[in-house]
């Protein structure tokens, strides 16, 4: 995983978030407080804006700087969670070099693990983790099986879709929708939606690069 890819991914993530404004916003409006799109936009915009500054840095430093910047930019629930993701991913990347798919998958897993710790949450609670945790598992599994990056990217997109969809019939036990009880049923989780959007964006980038 090199810095250029990471920064490129940030650009694509930002574009994807903006392209999905209506979806993301309406979900947080339905069972949250309506700011999740604005938060994601603010965060992805600032990450995208770091392109030139971070390009010369090693991948783990770039990841860490992105995490720290997100921490002081996003706020809300998603801010510390995504910040923890990047900072923790950076730490593992620094340790393992993140120079094979499996090592990258391990770094991703560490990021997801940090979200679970910070949010004291796991799957089935109608949060972004319902997308991120299965994506992480699939990633590690396929990487360990030595699958190609095309195969991995395609599978991760599918996994993200299924994870997102799984939030529809859940009662929320974390985040703002917690306590809504059955009224949350039928709605997708906003954070899960933005994770699905972001994973699609990054995987599409992987597919494009593999093509080239």
């Amino acid at each position, binding site marked *: 995983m090199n810095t250029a890819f990471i920064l490129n991914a940030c650009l694509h993530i930002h574009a994807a978030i903006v392209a999905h404004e209506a979806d993301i916003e309406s979900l947080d409006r*339905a069972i949250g407080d309506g700011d999740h799109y604005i938060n994601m936009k603010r965060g992805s915009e600032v990450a995208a804006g770091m392109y030139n500054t971070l390009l010369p840095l090693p991948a783990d430093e770039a990841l860490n700087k992105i995490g720290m910047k997100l*921490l*002081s930019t996003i706020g809300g629930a998603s801010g510390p969670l995504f910040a923890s993701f990047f900072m923790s991913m950076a730490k593992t990347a620094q340790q393992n070099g993140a120079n094979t798919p499996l090592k990258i998958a391990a770094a991703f897993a560490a990021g997801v693990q940090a979200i679970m710790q910070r949010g004291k949450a796991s799957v089935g609670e109608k949060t972004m983790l319902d997308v991120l945790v299965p994506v992480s598992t699939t990633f590690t599994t396929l990487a360990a099986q030595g699958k190609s990056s095309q195969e991995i990217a395609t599978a991760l997109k599918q996994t993200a879709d299924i994870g997102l969809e799984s939030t529809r019939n859940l009662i929320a036990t974390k985040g703002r929708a917690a306590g809504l009880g059955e009224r949350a049923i039928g709605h997708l989780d906003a954070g899960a939606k933005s994770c699905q959007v972001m994973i699609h964006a990054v995987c599409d980038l992987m597919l494009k690069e593999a093509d080239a």
Partner: protein
Amino acid sequence: MKKFINQVDQVLVESLSGFANAHHDLVTLHVDPTYLTRREKAVNKVAIVSGGGSGHEPLHAGYIGYGMLDAACPGQVFTSPTPDQILEAAEAVHTDQGVLFIVKNYAGDVMNFEMAAEMLPFQHATVLTSDDCAVVNSTYTTGRRGVAGTVIVEKCVGSLAETGADLAACKALGDKVNQQTSSIGVALTSCTVPAAGRATFDIADIELEMGVGIHGEPGRRREQMREADAIVHDCIQAILADFATKGLTHRQDVLLLINGFGATPLMELYLLYHSAAKLLAAHGVRIERSLVGNYTTALDMAGASITVCLLDDEIKQHWDSPVHTAALRWGR
């Protein structure tokens, strides 16, 4: 969306500048990162720091000053502040008695304050407010939301800190007040987050949202609009049931706070007070203190919340003690 604003991304900074200017005798606004402190730094006391998403004005900046907060960290609208704001605010007002954070119990607020606290090089503690009885606590949820009762916590803890009490005592009082306080809100209309540009939720002319949160989050249920007495009846039932669940008796002295969400006129708030007072009296509750007005708002939402705080001598004393902030002032 029809609001007095220039550009949506400037609302917060312009409003905070206006606030800081209008109350320059009381507060100082710091930017990059954004936080507000008392103009004159207090010495030799526990520093009380609060904060949260903006849109709840006068919470929290309106409660900075003698007898209440030392600093407040406003986040973006309905979005908790970031750790750097909290960290710098705490560092700015810290003397050597430690810092007490008063945090409304929302995942975002909790995590951001937590991350700031982890980085703090000195003694600190946190009071999580969770007075909203609309959200039923369960082992599966992150717990109840902090709403208008937060003002009472901030007032009492602020008063105690002024006496030179230590961090543990301040935290203990905050936890006690929170435990003895129960609130529930009702929305008649939605609020509109400026950056979103449209109403957070749709609600028909014949509906109300019972148990709404201060960000327009849905509450217990969507109900038929009905007369004030009937609405208040259900609110008071919820609050008394909450005290019962906690094993607390309500047949005693209380503080009754009728809080407007931003677009509900005083005339209606006092009518709600009348209605609530009647009902409480019928339940053997003695209203010994009261507060009516817009103290914890949800932007331009029409609606109100009812808060009952069970008083004891200690809470009474700290409620009554002098306070001098932009939004709450007495005794000096």
